[in-house]
């Protein structure tokens, strides 16, 4: 079973962070090197947040293009994800179309706190309509009240039953609430990247079982091996659990597990078929 990382940042935007990330991931080669030494086969890879400076890319167009080029160089390793700012009107929809039609991306990353929108707010709805059309899973940064509190996923999971949502970082200090959301919503999964504690991960496994936890690291802000150890060293965890968490579930969400009917045909594809 290949190991897939659900949360990887890469690109030139990393060079402009006020405090540099732990690892270097401005170039595809650097990310592949981290993958290799961490035992990661593939990574869902998207732009880092744009923190200002000389790399002016608030629309994430250069960043998405960079991910595309990396995915062409390493088609077996880099799974391209689109990142947009939903507050910019038509632009994010056009950019999503480019990421889908031209770049062949497989999912969408959204960050309510950085881009400043409510996770369930009006600007994100057209973007999610489009993600549903494309059959993309959506990974949300979560964890801060009020913009990205996990309970805001309740109305989203309900309004978009065909989208599989991943709530990143186990929603930080709101893990207890994220667990309840994932418990009640069949299309919500939790992702433990960054500084989710081993205790919080254990609580997810005890309450939801391994099928709702999708491994992701938040590379290069942390070392993937740290997150991996917090999962692999959980007391009582089985190798079947580990297979599910480290790629089994995610490959199903991405339609990569070869089983028919797991990835929904997009509206665009249906229209083209007619």
């Amino acid at each position: 079973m290949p190991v897939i990382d659900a949360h990887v940042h890469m690109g030139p935007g990393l060079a402009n962070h006020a405090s540099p990330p732990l690892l270097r991931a401005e170039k595809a080669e650097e990310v592949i090197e981290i993958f290799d030494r961490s035992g990661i086969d593939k990574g869902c890879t998207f732009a880092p947040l744009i923190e200002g400076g000389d790399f002016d890319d608030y629309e994430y167009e250069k960043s998405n293009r960079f991910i595309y080029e990396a995915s062409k160089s390493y088609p077996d390793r880099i799974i391209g994800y689109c990142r947009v700012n939903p507050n910019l009107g038509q632009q994010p929809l056009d950019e999503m179309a480019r990421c889908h039609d031209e770049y062949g991306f497989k999912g969408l990353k959204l960050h309510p706190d950085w881009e400043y929108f409510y996770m369930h707010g009006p600007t994100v709805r057209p973007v999610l309509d489009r993600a549903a059309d494309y059959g993309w899973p959506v990974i949300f940064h979560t964890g801060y009240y009020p913009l990205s509190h996990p309970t805001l996923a309740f109305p989203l999971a309900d309004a978009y039953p065909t989208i599989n949502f991943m709530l990143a970082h186990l929603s930080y200090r709101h893990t207890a609430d994220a667990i309840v959301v994932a418990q009640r919503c069949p299309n919500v999964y939790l992702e433990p990247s960054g500084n989710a504690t081993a205790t919080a991960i254990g609580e997810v496994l005890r309450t939801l079982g391994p099928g709702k936890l999708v491994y992701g690291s938040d590379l290069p802000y942390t070392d993937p091996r740290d997150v991996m150890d917090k999962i692999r060293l959980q007391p009582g965890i089985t190798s079947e659990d580990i297979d599910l968490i480290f790629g089994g579930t995610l490959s199903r969400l991405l339609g990569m597990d070869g089983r028919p009917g797991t990835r929904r045909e997009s509206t665009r594809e249906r229209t083209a078929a007619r």
Partner: protein
Amino acid sequence: MIDAHCHLGPGLRAQAPFGPLFKADTAESLVALLDEVDIERAVIFAPSWQGGWDDTDFNDPAYERANAAVAEAVNAHPDRFIGFGRVNPKFGSAAVAELERCFGEYSFRGLKLDNEADGFYPTDLRLLGPLAELVRANKGAIIVHTGFHPCEPLIFLPLAQAFPDVPLILGHMGGRILIDAVITAQHASNVYLETSGQMPGYIARAVKAVGADRVIFGTDIPFNIPSVETERIRSIGLPAEDLAKITEGNISKILRITAKMPAVA
């Protein structure tokens, strides 16, 4: 008019730093406030316990003394008051025992919860489940304090969905984040929005969004000015039929209040 949200009891004397505007620490003082604005009946429960020491203040973290004071007031004015118990779910089986006393010994009709004051997680059904079971068994209702974090409306959706036959009243209808209170109500038909302290435009929007059947009048006396609350609900231009539902009909249906029967079953 029936008021779904009133506080009464000795705990009001210990409120700090923002004490109540009016006196409602005895039944008589609260009845006087209600009389001024023609509120016929009120759902009453304890105010938040905000700390203190037995020898100088009011020491009642488990709300036992507060609930006893509410029971005394209800007994003195059964035609005016409907008692709700207040507990801190963090006390576990002790909280369950206190709520059992509230329904059994005091004949209360519901439960008031406030996680902003009492520091529990509203999504923790391990603690809230047994309390909600008791409310269900006694055909009561739950009213919760809502507003900004940590008592944002959507955090109560799991409780509402886990107990679909228990009416859940969102006190203050989420305050400034009305939109999430509306979403919560749209996702659970047992959720009601309560008007105390809310802006008039927001109340009108709530009625439009969820319908007059799901909005309930409350004042939060003695923390609000009674006439401001009663005038507000009359001033927003609701049809008489809707106004009657909000100020009387809905809560009467939920708590099975009839004109003739005393408020205590």
